[in-house]
């Protein structure tokens, strides 16, 4: 059984992002990028499922400029067998991404689509759900535990009320939450091996996908800054200050 794992290249999670002064976006040139942390978890889960004999092949897929090849090489170092880059220089919003990923999923005849629950740049949290919707297959989002057996997956999900468990028939989409696993540390020999693994390139057009009408960003601004507060020396001072503001 084949699994498709989608990975996205994003500004590294540790970077303090800068909003451009003209309001046109955030500074991404010359800023450290890496694989979206939730996608690392998705990759790790796929590799673990293969180690348990539940899946046989892992195909990593990404959409973006040629720089996303780097992210796919990282996925190959994790243990993906091969990679597909859907080359597109411009911005790709979730519905268009989902259409392309659904097309690849169908073409590959995969049974499991694993993705991160959200990308830490657009914070949309949409793509996995949209892939499932377009393919009319089951979805198990925000997964913190996945058991695959036969034609089914039992998935525990992180929901507001606690932990919910669903049973879904395959094919299905699973999106990974932070607590699903701890991604492995990539070793140099694996990184070297990844350079020789196949990486194919395709385009939205090749997949028969036309971009859906997009959401237009008219302005990007920094969040209102909080004014620096005061440091109190004792608990008594803290209590007095909070009482003076009517907070206690």
């Amino acid at each position, binding site marked *: 059984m084949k699994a498709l794992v989608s990975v996205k290249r994003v500004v590294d*999670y540790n970077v*303090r992002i800068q*909003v451009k002064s003209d309001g046109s976006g955030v500074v991404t040139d010359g800023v450290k990028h890496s694989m979206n942390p939730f996608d690392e978890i998705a990759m790790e889960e796929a590799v673990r499922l293969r180690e348990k004999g539940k899946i046989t092949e892992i195909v990593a897929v990404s959409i973006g400029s040629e720089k996303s090849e780097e992210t796919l090489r990282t996925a190959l170092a994790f243990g993906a067998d091969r990679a597909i880059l859907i080359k597109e220089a411009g911005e790709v*919003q*979730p*519905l268009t991404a*989902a259409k392309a990923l659904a097309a690849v999923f169908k073409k590959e005849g995969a049974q499991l689509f694993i993705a991160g629950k*959200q990308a*830490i*740049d*657009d*914070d*949309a*949290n*949409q*793509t996995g*759900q949209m892939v*499932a*919707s377009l393919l*009319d*297959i*089951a*979805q198990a*989002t925000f997964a913190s535990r996945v058991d695959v057996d036969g034609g089914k997956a039992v998935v525990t999900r992180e*929901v*507001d*009320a*606690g932990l*919910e468990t*669903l*049973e*879904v*028939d395959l094919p*299905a989409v699973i999106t990974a939450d*932070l*607590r699903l696993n701890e991604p492995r540390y990539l070793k140099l020999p694996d990184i070297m091996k990844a350079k020789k693994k196949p990486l194919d390139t395709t385009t939205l057009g090749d997949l028969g996908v036309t971009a*859906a*009408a*997009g*959401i*237009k*960003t*008219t*302005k*990007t601004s*920094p*969040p209102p800054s*909080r004014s*620096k*507060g*005061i*440091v*109190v020396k*004792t608990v*008594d001072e*803290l209590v007095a*200050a*909070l009482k003076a*503001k009517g907070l*206690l």
Partner: protein
Amino acid sequence: MSKILVIAEHAEGKLNASVSKTLAAAAKIGGEVDVLVLAADGAAVAAQAAQLAGVTKVLVVNNAANTQALAALLAPQIVEVAKSGYTHLLFPGTTFGKDLAPRVAAKLDVQQVSDIMAVHGASSFDRPTYAGNAITTVEAPAGIVVATVRLASFTAVAQGGSAAVETLSISATLPGHTRFVKLEAQKSERPDLQSAARVVSGGRAMGSSDNFKIIYELADKIGAGVGASRAAVDSGYVPNDMQVGQTGKIIAPELYFAIGISGAIQHLAGIKDARTIVAINKDAEAPIFEVADFGLVADLFTAVPELSSKL
């Protein structure tokens, strides 16, 4: 004029508090606002929704398949209702709404706007990106607007409405590929984290789940909800549904205590809209002090019990 459909979140016959905040966003857009209740038997929930201010009509779909809120089953029903002339579909920005809304948007072939935090017009909204470090003003494309609402940015609408309740029958066929197994809910007497006026959170420096009791004591003293940083959750001190931050809950209480929390970007994303932030941390260099209105550099194991005893 806009015709807005708000999708109701509910459990065990009770309307979720997220709905009244979603209605507040709907009110900012303006126009007719209907609430859709999908349930096994939605009468009780519909009655609660009908009392909320600004609701024109409550639509109820009763079906045993709706006993649990499974996105794959709810989505085709919502799509069918949506096609009867709605301009907007609004979902609460909870795990319920985040799971469901994109499934509906894809079926309607529209891009979805996630986490709207301000309304500028019928199709213009502000939403946070990069863990809340950039706010983008966006224009939704033509066609039906599908969006989730960031609860921390809106104040719940008042009670006092008396909307009509109407039962709908739906012809959509529902898939059989998804089955509910169980829900392990955390039961707590404390106020709900997402609607509490006061919240006390503990971080990695708490050191153990036992030590968290001083957080609970302080919280109980001031009637606060209890939250946690990711580090505290990952260390197993508290369950995951208490996590506050980019990947946990986004909250906006009047008063927030960050105790033993360093203040990583991802945690700050969840508390930026708190009215007043108090930090207690022994590391004077911790980034949390950059956003705290009141900071106390002290050992939390002496400061927090002392604070509780003085309240």
